[in-house]
């Protein structure tokens, strides 16, 4: 019985409890299938043209009209803004799914490590500054809403681990508003430009820079709130 033997080694209990692996025949078939996949992948990679045509030239050509100077941000927020909008929506849906599964674990009062709390007093302002820098940087260099949101969300996680809790007053609709802000503002701006006759999410070049910055700021807040809320793992 694998169970009795494994109890002597804590930490490997779960793995031992799993059913036994595939037999030799199944292993051979798996190996062959994997080899076939490997050959297929290798052929696909080797048959690629040495210089991929890509859309880099087209993006560079239209960069001045995008409102930002960094091609990646131009693609993410302007040329392919629809994808980013849906990404934000997917993140939001993931949180909805988590929230509908279970309420947040009862805040068993944290006996937070005083070292962690002290460190966070130094780290949290710095991380908020870094998030702001990444957000602003997105306009002309690598950076942007997702990176800034991840850093800001990690700040929230760290603060949670060091025993800080959201005040009750912010727990309700202000939190929900923060979660929704990114998708809402993105969609609203996308719809608003349609009043001028443009297609959905096609910003007028003159105001594109400001609109993208506003969308990215809202998205940063929403992504941060969503990631931190996902870490809590349940409806507050």
């Amino acid at each position, binding site marked *: 019985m694998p169970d009795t033997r494994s109890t002597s080694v804590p930490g490997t209990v779960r793995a031992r409890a799993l059913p036994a692996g595939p037999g030799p025949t199944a292993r051979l078939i798996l190996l062959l299938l994997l080899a076939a996949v490997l050959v297929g992948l290798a052929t696909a990679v080797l048959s690629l043209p040495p210089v991929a045509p890509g859309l880099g030239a087209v993006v560079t050509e239209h960069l001045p009209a995008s409102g930002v100077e960094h091609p990646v941000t131009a693609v993410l927020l302007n040329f392919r803004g629809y994808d980013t909008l849906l990404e934000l929506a997917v993140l939001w849906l993931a949180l909805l799914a988590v929230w509908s599964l279970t309420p947040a*674990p009862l805040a068993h009062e944290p006996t937070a490590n005083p070292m962690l709390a002290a460190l966070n007093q130094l780290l949290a302002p710095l991380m908020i500054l870094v998030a702001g820098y990444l957000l602003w940087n997105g306009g002309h*260099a690598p950076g942007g809403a997702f990176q800034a949101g991840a850093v800001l969300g990690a700040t929230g996680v760290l603060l949670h681990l060091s025993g800080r809790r959201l005040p009750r007053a912010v727990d309700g609709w202000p939190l929900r508003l923060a979660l929704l802000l990114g998708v809402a503002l993105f969609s609203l701006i996308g719809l608003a430009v349609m009043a001028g006759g443009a297609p959905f999410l096609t910003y007028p070049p003159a105001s594109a820079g400001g609109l993208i910055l506003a969308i990215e700021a809202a998205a940063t807040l929403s992504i941060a709130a969503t990631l931190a809320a996902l870490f809590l*793992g349940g409806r507050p």
Partner: protein
Amino acid sequence: METLITPGNDAWVAVLNLLLDGLLGLLLLWLAWRTLASADLFRAIVLFIAFGLVLAMIWARLDAADIALAEAAIGAGVTGALLLAALARLHPDRPGTQARPRGSDAS
């Protein structure tokens, strides 16, 4: 770096680059294998975070700074934290996950 190696500069730099990239690639494969083969879930998560960081370095080597940033922040950082939180939910009594800061505090 390049100024230190005088004879045949470019060739040396190319070899060094190749060595570094090869090392990173092998390290990534090894980390992926260890992550999947690890019996201990906590160790697997830590290896996954290390995998994400090495992958971020590889993206940076490929001049894809945006993806490197996203990989380090979201792929390694936030996903790692989420996995650790999920593990703590799976085994609330397991030492080494949730109870670590509390245990060190209480004793």
